[in-house]
């Protein structure tokens, strides 16, 4: 009994954080879904959800209620244990990954010294949610979709892992917090030092989260919805949440590893300290705009909800502004609170690129997708690891860092161009062979 009490006293912060994440997680994923719908609408010359709440701001709540009260249909010949287990696995994996993410220097649940590896491990567990879901539905199409999805995830995990290794070579540690501190020490975000690794990570993470242009396994026009076909109501909501939470997790890892985590742009350049004013200014602008729009809503209740939203934005602005005060106790909180703002902003930027890509590009066919992963991304990521390692070695032996990193990056780009040329030659051969065959 005493042991339990000791444990609680020691770890109560982490427990509260964990509870907050479990509670906030559906809300977070729901609002990412709303963001996607609004961005999609904007790119498609329309407005998106507008009715439920002002500008659709309460749409996630309406969706959640709808999905929860829907009838729970389980196919007759489905394996009940696994049918139940699969979405639970997906969601658990997505949620667990949040435990390792460092939103600010003090804002993390578990400062593991293998943080990055832990996230990688958890995402490989998430694959099972998909595979088992497809199998449990006991439908040919679902199984095919699930197996394809899993194959795609496993293939791109290699490329993503290698890209992470390139970043790790620069950071020298697996701990999420220390990676950002390493970037603070160097004074440069790793994306500028290893841009190719970032690009590989970006492409690989789009494939890892089953997003377009790599979403063939769950594309509507192909196999209806792939492994998710037989799931409805709350179970489907869990899968959906897991997918969007995965996007945020992947964005967080990219932000931590490449985009400087919670650091503001140019953290070590003193004359750019005025950039510290940006977070409260931005939030002030958002708050002001929300207040401005309050009387312009279509009804009294919409206006009221908009007022509440504006109030929430104000509540967020206040700490951002207060920590700028020269009072030492408040200033100590500045890295944490401003750090959280910058971190979330960067993750949102990364997620925006995901959304942008989804609505711009057509879909890759499955074999083209696998070819991209195995023939291009994996060799390139391996070469990139060697290049970055060489550059780090050169830099340690006194070569100018620009020359070292720039030179090796150039070499990697040349290898990439050669890979593309070889791929085109191979495709021309295949096309010629096919033309011969049919002639």
């Amino acid at each position, binding site marked *: 009994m005493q042991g339990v009490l000791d444990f609680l006293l020691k770890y109560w912060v982490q427990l509260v954080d964990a509870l907050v994440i479990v509670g906030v997680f559906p809300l977070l994923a729901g609002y990412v879904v709303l963001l996607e719908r609004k961005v*999609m609408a904007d*790119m*498609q*010359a*329309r407005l998106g959800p507008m009715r439920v709440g002002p500008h659709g701001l309460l749409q996630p709540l309406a969706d959640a209620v709808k999905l929860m009260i829907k009838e729970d249909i389980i196919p007759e010949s489905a394996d009940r244990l696994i049918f139940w287990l699969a979405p639970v696995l997906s969601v658990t994996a997505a949620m667990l990954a949040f435990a390792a993410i460092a939103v600010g220097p003090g804002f993390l649940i578990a400062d593991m010294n293998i943080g990055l590896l832990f996230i990688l491990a958890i995402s490989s567990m998430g694959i099972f949610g998909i595979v088992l879901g497809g199998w449990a539905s006991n439908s040919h199409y679902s199984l095919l979709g699930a197996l394809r999805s899993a194959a795609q995830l496993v293939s791109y995990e290699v490329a993503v892992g290698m890209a992470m290794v390139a970043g790790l070579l620069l950071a020298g540690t697996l701990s999420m917090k220390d990676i950002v501190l390493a970037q603070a020490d160097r004074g440069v975000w790793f994306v500028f030092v290893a841009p190719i690794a970032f690009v590989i990570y970006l492409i690989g993470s789009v494939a890892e989260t089953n997003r*377009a*242009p790599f*979403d*063939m396994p769950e*594309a*509507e*026009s*192909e196999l*209806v919805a792939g492994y998710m076909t037989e799931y409805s109501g709350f179970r489907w909501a869990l899968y959906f949440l897991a997918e969007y939470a995965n996007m945020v997790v992947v964005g967080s890892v990219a932000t931590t590893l490449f985009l400087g985590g919670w650091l503001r742009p140019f953290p070590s350049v003193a004359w750019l300290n005025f950039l510290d004013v940006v977070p409260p200014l931005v939030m002030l602008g958002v708050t002001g705009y929300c207040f401005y729009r309050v009387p312009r809503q279509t009804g009294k209740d919409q206006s009221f909800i908009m007022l509440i939203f504006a109030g929430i934005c104000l509540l967020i602005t206040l700490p951002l502004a207060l920590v700028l005060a020269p009072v030492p106790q408040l200033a100590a909180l500045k890295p944490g609170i401003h750090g959280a703002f910058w971190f979330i902003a960067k993750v949102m930027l990364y997620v925006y690129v995901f959304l942008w890509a*989804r*609505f*711009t*590009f*057509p*879909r*890759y*066919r*499955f*074999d*083209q997708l696998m070819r991209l992963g195995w023939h291009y991304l994996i060799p390139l990521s391996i070469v990139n690891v060697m290049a970055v390692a060489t550059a780090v070695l050169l830099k340690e032996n006194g070569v100018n860092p620009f020359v070292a990193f720039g030179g090796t990056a150039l070499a990697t780009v040349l290898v990439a161009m050669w890979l593309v040329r070889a791929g085109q030659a191979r495709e021309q051969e295949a*096309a010629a062979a*096919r*033309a011969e*065959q*049919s002639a």
Partner: protein
Amino acid sequence: MDETRITGMPPVEETAVPGADEIVLNMGPQHPSTHGVLRVKLRLDGEKIEGSECFIGYLHRGVEKIAEHRTYQQFAPYVDRMDYVAAVSNGLGYCEAVEKLLGAEAPPRARVVRTILTELQRIASHLLWLGTHALDIGALTPVFYCLREREEILKIFEKYCGARLTTHAFRIGGLQYETYDGFEHDVKRFCVDFASKVDEYEQLLTGNRIWVGRTKGIGLLNSEQAIALGVTGPPLRASGVKWDIRKAMPYAAYDQYEFEIPTGKNGDTYDRYLVRMEEMRQSRRICLQAIENIPSGPIMAKVGKVLKPPPGEVYHAIEAPKGEIGYYVVSDGTTQPYRVRVRPPSFINLQALDTMVRGHLVADVVAIIGTLDIVLGEVDR
């Protein structure tokens, strides 16, 4: 396989038991991408398609039989419901066929207005094709842009004849309605805006690596195969055959205007895409020329209220957006036709599906069905 012979795959049930790796996959009739109620049975070796068979008739409404029991004018609205995406063209073909039977000719003003509306309809049909084809391949955005432009055309149709989709815009002998005030202005404004829009679509798709990868080399149909199968319209032109009825046997007012016939080289999906994009531009060109001087005069020829064409038969074909639509009308001297047989372009083009789909993967079937631009209303009638 000897490609100049027209053979379908023998019906799937009659072949020997499929080999160890072969499975039969059924697509449809309810499927998000078969553009209507079409059932396709695919014989697969792993993921590669060995053969296919189409099952149609889900939308058969007996249009041709109905024709035998309606007067010529009463049948005209039925014709719109065949290719419901491009109703105006259907109407043009039918009205001109009956006019040929009667020996009448629509007055010049009617012919020019008919040309303008038909070309606008061609653009609208191609826009819908582009949107849905891109959507099938995974590009979620072009469909909204295409529908936005199509909306402008449908507004013009609504202002002209009161309907957007099944317009019944033409009458036998000419037009019923005079063009509304502002018709020329609307059409001109649309045509002027449209040029940049087509460029927008091309920017989004034509050079896109993924788009090219999904459409180049897919659904090959060379010119001999196309001619042997009877394929017409953009698929025929994309295979390299420069045949367009608007140039070969001009009707309405097409002989007065300058326009080009785009052709392709390889006969793959990418070429068909490029051909249709260019056709949209050429249609715009025709509209701009036509709108400059619409001749004044009567809009209806003197054909009388009760139409009793002399006994005889006529086959009249026009270049609909989907291909050659032909009407074979047989008159026995009464007010109702003896037989109206429609040569639907989608029906004949669909025959090419088997040839085009062999050797490709299942994911390509959707792209190939989309590139043929079929409308089941026309296939089944």
